[in-house]
């Protein structure tokens, strides 16, 4: 590690290139299929890129399913989930980190242990509960979406944990000074802690957005009206009808993935820091 010789560096590059290719190849294949003329899809051995690219696959594919509507639905649900998370998680994390109270530790451990609660184990009673609220099959779009959005307002234990760790790292002198200035607890939270935690809040927002954007099980369980479908549901619907339309399917997949990838490239640093933070350390 101390001295680098150029041949070893080259070997290392080749190794990393091979690994990267292994991970990228399926994505390249997805894009390549989406740009192929239909008659060249079932050619074997496959060609990665056949010129000219058929960009028309994209508008055609998006017309085939109600893509615009599903895209819009998914976006609204994801944004409202972010709003819910930002409402519930920071304030709970504050209560778990910067206020001293005797019930804090026991309750925090309850919160921690629910990180390990599999949704699959409670999906049936949760369905029954949401149905008793009148949320399942509700033709009013906001009620129909409530099962995907309202839980975010009840907080996500992993994000609470993440924010709590962040809040703990802010020096307590800042709060003490504010108390002397006559600030109450909520003012300290709003005016001191939140502005200092912008990067952690953005990280949590991104995770919530991506989680909501890519989810399948919860929409599949709770959304029954086609007009309320998310992209995952819409794609499955299309797939069960037209299984061999790979060019259209892959084009739709590319557009589905695009917002998340763009988000990633804008906030790469926060992504990586946030993920490492979930694994204990920052």
């Amino acid at each position: 590690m101390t001295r680098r010789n150029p041949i070893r560096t080259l070997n290392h590059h080749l190794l990393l290139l091979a690994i990267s290719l292994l991970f990228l190849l399926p994505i390249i294949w997805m894009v390549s299929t989406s740009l192929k003329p239909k008659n060249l899809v079932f050619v074997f051995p496959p060609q990665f890129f056949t010129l000219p690219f058929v960009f028309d696959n994209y508008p055609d594919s998006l017309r085939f399913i109600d893509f615009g509507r599903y895209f819009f639905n998914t976006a609204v649900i994801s944004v409202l989930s972010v709003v819910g998370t930002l409402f519930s998680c920071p304030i709970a994390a504050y209560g778990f980190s910067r206020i001293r109270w005797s019930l804090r530790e026991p309750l925090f451990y309850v919160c921690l242990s629910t990180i390990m609660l599999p949704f699959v184990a409670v999906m049936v009673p949760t369905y029954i509960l949401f149905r008793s609220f009148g949320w399942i099959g509700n033709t009013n779009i906001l009620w129909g979406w409530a099962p995907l959005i309202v839980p975010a307002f009840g907080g996500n234990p992993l994000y609470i944990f993440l924010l709590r760790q962040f809040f703990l790292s802010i020096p307590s002198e800042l709060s003490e000074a504010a108390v002397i200035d006559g600030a109450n607890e909520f003012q300290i939270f709003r005016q001191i802690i939140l502005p200092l935690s912008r990067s952690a809040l953005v990280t949590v927002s991104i995770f919530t957005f991506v989680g909501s954007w890519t989810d399948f099980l919860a929409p599949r369980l709770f959304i029954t009206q086609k007009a309320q479908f998310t992209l995952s549901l819409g794609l499955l619907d299309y797939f069960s009808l037209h299984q061999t339309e790979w060019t259209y399917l892959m084009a739709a997949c590319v557009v589905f993935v695009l917002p998340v990838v763009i988000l990633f490239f804008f906030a790469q640093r926060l992504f990586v820091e946030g993920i490492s933070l979930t694994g204990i350390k920052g």
Partner: protein
Amino acid sequence: MHSRRSLRQNLKGLLFVSPWLIGFIVFSLYPMLSAIGLAFTNYNILQPARAEFTGLANLTRLINDPLFWKSLSNTGFMTIIGVPLLIILSLLVALPLNRDMRGISFYRTAVYLPALLPPMVVVLLFLWILNPNYGLLKLPFDALGVQSPGWLADPRWSKPAILIMVLWNTVGQVMVITLAGLRDIPKHLYEAASIDGAGSVRKFFDITLPGLSPVIFYNVLTGVLSFVQIFTQAFVSSVGGSGGGSSGSSLGSPVNSTLMMSLHIYKTAFYSSQAGYAAMLSLVVLIFSLGLAFLFFRFAQRYVYYEFAENPA
């Protein structure tokens, strides 16, 4: 005096965590308790009013349900094979990525990119890649001159096929966590070992692995949690294999080889409408997750809490 102050502090704390507390009670605690209650009834999704207490009938049924044992072994297979593979692969990838060199961020991004894709996209993409006649993964088999497996159409290969897509989709995430763990291992330990004449294998087992153990432990727990819940990939592959249909009869095909616990619960509750029995199946997952939660709890006590208290991020 003192107790009044502590009451006020507790009220204040409760007020701050109340969104979480309400969410916990409504969306976690109640469903958990409700699952326990439902498991001993014949609750039918379509006729909820007729639900009756049936004692241990669902438990007897569970023990005699070959599909339960099948789904348990399928989920067990995915978890027991999948989690070690996930840990080893992410470590194998993270080690060469833990180096400061030109272009390293490109490689890291490339490995992480698949982790951004929605499971729905991953499964559709792999249905195409694993297509036994025209799929990309037929190429290496052709090159070796052997017959490509039928993957999702073949009960012997359907689970490995799902494993491939899940791993491709999740290794990136675990790699990032592992990489952060690697960077936290103090460099001077390696330097000292070099002076003592330790080789790279020795360094790996004596420094890297012990230094990573909290990270690996965390990854194992979250890995188990996600593999136990595999749903989307199995659901879509079996729907795709049979041309869709809303009867649910194809779920878990071929020959129930992809019938995971999650799928069995889903099918029982929403296609056969037997939510009572589905709740009994859920209890198995719930009990298992209690074990996980306990381990996580111990883990948090040992590493997270103290380390952060003295060494904030």
